[in-house]
């Protein structure tokens, strides 16, 4: 590749007592009346309160809270929250949650900064200008999406079930808070699937057509952390070291794919989510090895280069050079099998409740997904159906 772009303007607050630094950051951003966005589960189990308490102790009280964000948020939800923000006269956004909450918040920020009422009217790729600055702080509560550091928001269009991508550097938050306390309560299955989502981001970021030296540096470092910590974080959720490593890995994988895109795993995964309601992270877990096998003829060298990060340098060097790409896929499959044994993470589409009847529609949606354009191997509807059959 003779040209690439790289951007990451997000300030990261990482480690112990990171939450308690949010008020100071809001002050620096001239924010006094934040709208707190989260979901009903996080409000119920007290995760949201943990953050708002840390803010209130330092004298920042949220102007309003909105917790009615569904798992697969939609354009309508984004527009509704933007209207609520204006009604409540807020001046900033604090998003607490996983990918859906953070992507919804990004959408809200885009609507507000562009002074529009409808996010659909500004859909596109790098097509909006800077607009009004809305101070924006995110607190991820899963270690997987990496959304806290990406220039993309994925939001469902309820009218046709398509997950739309809004790509713009202006959706990146100002501040992301990586506090290990936020993921400690995550159940094993969610820990495992979101961790595999982060692995998928890193693998696709390092091997897609848009991969570049900087994104690959972040991606490979993320792969190493995931290979070393995901099983521990799943089995022993209270292991703060493993939790923190996974949170960092997720962020690094997010920075990687934000600057080099993803590929067919995401294209098909978005379609599976839109058509069959398969949770994003579960779809990524199931599809990753199958798409890697599909891409093998075009990406063997890139996959082989990932092996040392997955299994360690000694094992990788002991593997014959022509077997390393396949060994990398097998290492990912082995990790999936361990996680399946540990928490019942589904590894096939049938186990995830997908019916073969939906494959044609999933494939049609997948070939229209933007992530496919940078996949190392092109894919037609028929080829996507083959991948789905292999993953069934």
């Amino acid at each position: 590749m003779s040209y690439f772009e790289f951007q990451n303007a997000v300030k990261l607050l990482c480690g112990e007592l990171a939450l308690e630094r949010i008020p100071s950051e809001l002050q620096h951003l001239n924010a006094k009346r934040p709208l707190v966005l989260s979901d009903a589960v996080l409000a119920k189990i007290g995760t949201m309160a943990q953050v708002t308490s840390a803010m209130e102790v330092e004298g920042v009280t949220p102007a309003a809270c909105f917790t009615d964000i569904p798992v697969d948020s939609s354009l309508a939800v984004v527009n509704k929250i933007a209207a609520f923000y204006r009604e409540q006269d807020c001046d900033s956004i604090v998003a607490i949650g996983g990918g859906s909450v953070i992507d919804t918040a990004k959408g809200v920020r885009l609507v507000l900064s562009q002074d529009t009422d409808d996010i659909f009217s500004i859909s596109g790729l790098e097509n909006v200008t800077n607009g009004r600055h809305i101070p924006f702080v995110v607190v991820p509560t899963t270690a997987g999406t990496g959304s806290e550091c990406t220039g993309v928001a994925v939001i469902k269009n309820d009218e046709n079930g398509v997950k739309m991508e809004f790509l713009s550097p202006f959706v990146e938050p100002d501040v992301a808070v990586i506090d290990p306390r936020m993921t400690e309560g995550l159940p094993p299955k969610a820990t495992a699937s979101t961790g595999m989502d982060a692995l998928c981001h890193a693998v696709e970021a390092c091997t897609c057509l848009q991969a570049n030296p900087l994104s690959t540096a972040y991606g490979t470092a993320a792969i190493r952390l995931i290979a070393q910590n995901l099983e521990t974080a799943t089995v022993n959720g209270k292991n703060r070291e493993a939790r923190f490593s996974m949170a960092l890995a997720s962020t690094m994988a997010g920075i990687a794919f934000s600057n080099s895109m993803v590929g067919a795993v995401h294209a098909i995964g978005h379609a599976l989510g839109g058509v069959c309601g398969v949770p994003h992270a579960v779809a990524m877990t199931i599809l990753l090895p199958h798409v890697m096998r599909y891409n093998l003829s075009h990406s063997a060298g890139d996959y082989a280069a990932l092996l040392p990060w997955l299994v360690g340098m000694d094992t990788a060097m002991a593997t014959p050079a022509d077997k390393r790409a396949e060994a990398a896929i097998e290492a990912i499959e082995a990790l999936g099998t361990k996680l399946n044994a540990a928490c019942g993470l589904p590894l096939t589409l049938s186990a995830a409740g997908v019916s073969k009847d939906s494959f044609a529609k999933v494939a049609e949606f997948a070939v229209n997904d933007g992530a496919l354009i940078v996949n190392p191997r092109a894919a037609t509807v028929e080829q996507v159906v083959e991948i789905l059959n292999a993953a069934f």
Partner: protein
Amino acid sequence: MQRMKRFFQKLTVGIVLRVVHAALVELKSQDTRVAEEFARMPEGLSYSIYTGHNGPVLHVIWQGGKLRRVRSLQKAGCTLHIKSMPLSFRLFTGQMGLAQAYAAHAFTMAGEVADVMRLARLVNIVESYLFPNIINRRIMTDIPAPQLCFLRTYARIAWGFLTFKYRISA
């Protein structure tokens, strides 16, 4: 020298844009994959392709079973803006594929990503006819197999231009 170069690039890009439109019109009835893409295309979907600053522009609209070239569009369903004339020149002369252009942030887009993907598939098929395989191998990860001889495609396009088949619709 610089102005001459830019003039040459603009001229070339303008011609290739017209040829791409013509090829799409011809292949719609000759290539089953192009026919299928158009069959799935929503009625009224329009594309505007801008090339660099003050460069040639192509506006097309899919209406009544025809891909019509029009003088202007108030707001196309999908607007691509290639960021500079040298990039446009590379894209339309087989030095860079659409996927590579995307990867290199060569254009911005307003509209739905699905419509760009549709266009990307169509352009890949068109390029597989217009460019020799030595070029296609460099700009595509997989080359769509041609369903008819490229000479026949060129002949049909030439005849179309001679008979004003691709002129701007009212």
